[in-house]
């Protein structure tokens, strides 16, 4: 069985490390990008099965990432947005741009895994 490749775009190293550990333990192959530039470079090299992205990142916000993936890469890979700014405007904008799901911080790793699996099942 092939493992799913996840791209975790999170500038908080501790949280990224924690989530990576948990996701890897769940069987996913996780790549971490700490800013928008790295995400873009990673996407040019390799398209993951699912993207988990924070909204507030250096160089390239999570919403811009969604727009980039949907409109420039014309990719339909699932994107789950994580943000501590879980206000209505951000949520609506994320979904409007094409995000598949939205999780507010603090994040429950168990919940995140459930949502990832759900999105991957759709694919």
């Amino acid at each position, binding site marked *: 069985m092939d493992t799913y490749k996840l791209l975790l775009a999170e500038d908080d*190293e501790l949280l990224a490390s924690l989530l990576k*550990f*948990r996701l890897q333990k769940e069987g996913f192959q996780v790549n971490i990008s700490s800013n928008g530039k790295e995400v873009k470079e990673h996407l040019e090299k390799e398209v993951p099965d699912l993207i988990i992205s924070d909204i507030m990142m250096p160089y390239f916000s999570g919403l811009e990432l969604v727009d980039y993936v949907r409109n420039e890469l014309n990719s339909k890979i699932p994107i789950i947005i994580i943000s501590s700014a879980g206000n209505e405007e951000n949520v609506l904008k994320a979904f409007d741009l094409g995000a598949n799901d939205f999780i507010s911080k603090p994040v429950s790793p168990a919940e995140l895994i459930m949502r990832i699996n759900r999105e991957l099942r759709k694919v």
Partner: protein
Amino acid sequence: MTYSLTYSIYPLLSAPKIHTDLLWDLTMLFVGIGIIFFVCIFFYRNKISARSRKILEKKRELSPMISEFIFYSENGSKEEKNTYIEHKIHIRELLNDNFNREVLASTLMELRRDVSGQALKQLIDLYKNLGLHLDAYKKLESWRWEMVSKGILELSHMQVTESYQYIVRFINDKRSVIRKQAEIATITLKNEGISYFMDTTKYKISEWQQLSLLEILRNNKDFKPPQFKTWLTSKNKHVVLFALRLIKHYNQNDARASLIELLKHRNDQIKLEAIECLKIFNVVEAKDMLKKVFWRCSTEVKISILGAISLLGDQGDIVFLRKIERKKLDFTVKSKALSAINTILPETIMPTEGIENVTNNEMPDDIIEKKEIEEFNDENPIEHREETSKEIFQEELNIPDSGDESESKIPSKKEVHIEVGQENLDFLPIVVSESEENILYNAIGSDAIKDEIELKNKEEIEGFESSMFDLSETTLDFLPIVVSNEPKEEKQEDNTDFDIVNNEINTTIMDREEKESDNPEFEFTVQDLTFLPIVVEEELKNIIDNDEVKFPKPEEEVENDFNEKIIDEGKTVIEEILENNLANEQSMNKELIDEEDNVFIDWPISQEFQQDNVNQAPKEDIESILSLIPKPYEFDNETAVLIRLLSDIEELGDHREIPFLLDLLLEESRPLIQERIQNVVYTIERRIDPKVKSVRHSIFEELFHSCDTESKLILLDEIVAVGDNKEISFLTGLLKDPNIEISAKAESTLAQLKERLSEKTLKEMDVETNVLSDSHENSLVNEDDDLLTFTDEFALVGPGGNAIKNMSQSFLNKNQDFGLLFQLRSIPNRLLEKLNG
């Protein structure tokens, strides 16, 4: 002099002589300080950067271990367990270093903000298991406020409840940051922390801090709010204020007296908060205190009090609010008082500011011309018509002088109404028919139509002139002012211009019903009915439809209908008897009508309705309905007076009137009146002797008393053959006869008669049931179902036949009745009995 001044000024402007070495020394000093400064900057910057890097590296080193500890499960693989043990050993070693402990604590604190759920619980447990809370305790002992604050924050975030006792000591700390942090930690760590805080705090609780504390209380699990009214007595006004807000937040409305008392508090904030609570809890009893404290409050509090009074107050508080309006107070307070009045009694105070006085405004004469009026009329027909109609009405009230003197003397119809008394007629509706309104509206702007209106008024005046009414002498208060749609000629024929409304018709009907219930016959004379206008209204159709209840069909007609149905199918002997009876009844009815020249008046049926019936022959249903409508008699004056006299005698008379009645009976030739006289006599007899049976005397009884024993025995035999129910009572009386032979014969006769009557009854029931089921029932049932439910006796509830049985039963009971129907039906029987006996 000038030289000296110049000479004296220059030395002041010139630089003092400083030794060059000193300058160099100073230069070296500042350069050295600068170098030291920059060296220090670089040193500490590098040191901080190095520390940050070191911390970051340490975090990177610790984060996998933290992840391992947080997400460790005992069900994992062996390698996972080995890794966990290795990490545990490693981290124990690391924790020996304070720096590592510090980094680990800060790492856990950072992660705490980003994770939730089970991971958060594991993280907190890890914090406690690693003993990092002990470092936080040490921080509490630091002299640096930031360290103390940081320690309190760590302990509260990591939910170290054991630290509660250590933290509460800082609630009254002089340093506000520590104090606030301690307040939050106290409330966070234990639910009872709020009580301790409210009891012990001495310092001010800022607005922001109150909000923070309230937010924490809301998020606390299993928090049961204490009775915050306890702290309304606190010496700390901030505690009182916070308690008031908590009372409001948790809807603790059991502190009404305290809230009222707090209205007298010197602090405006507490007053305002107490007023808010009183408003929310609807403490009406606080009104008096609100009024008392009002005059010495600030404007803000006054406005708040007025807002409370507007919610809690009633009409009794209007006086107080009026006083405020008249006092020299801030205009905002006055405005609030007025709005409070309007809140209690809406629309009491009308807007006054900026309102122009328009009482003296008049319409310029030279603006509107006639053509413009017509144009305006086209654009706004309704408004214009209203105005014009008013003008015409005023013209009608003022009769033109150009008319004849006779006409001018005769008041118009509307004037007559005014003379009758407008005050008395105020309660009456002024109804104008559509036709008249149309004439009025269409007459606008047309002289020709104005003439028509005048002509119409003349016709009305003439019609009124010929009226028999003298309105000046007649009280017409009970009549509404109604202008009818009926043609004038009909009104003149009716000798009145007035239509009647349903109320009056109903009143008349009710009176009629009452009199009918008292007396089986009508007692109205023409004179009695003259006050009633005979008017046909379409609205009476409803009454016609419902008059089955109000005017039950006369029994004669019902019997006729019923017997006709039977006779049509009749083949048996009993049916022949019934046929003969029916023929006799019909002939008698005909004679009765011919003799008395009774004229039937189509009482409630409109002419239009009748014409429709005539023109539309197929409408048999409607005719059948109309046939059920009673047609009241109209007696001549003499007969009506006689009937009234009989009724009076029946009600008031005694045995002394019986001879007179008997004489009258001999003189009277009309069967109906004869029957009426007989009934009156019988009623008086019953009143004198209640033992008089409800059944009439047997015809054999008279003969019985005037014959010998042998004849009596023969008569008793005949009773068996021809007797009926009337003879049963007679025979029962004979059972006590002293002559044993007669009593024994009477007993046997009674038994035989009863047997015969019972057989006869059964036969009649069978015959009636069969006949009805074949003909009458079908014919009735096939008609409109509504017709099957119009009387008690003919309660033909449905096609099931139960009602038919009721009919037959009622038919049998007819022999015991004393109505006109029974009397008429009994005549042939009497004749037959007389012939036989």
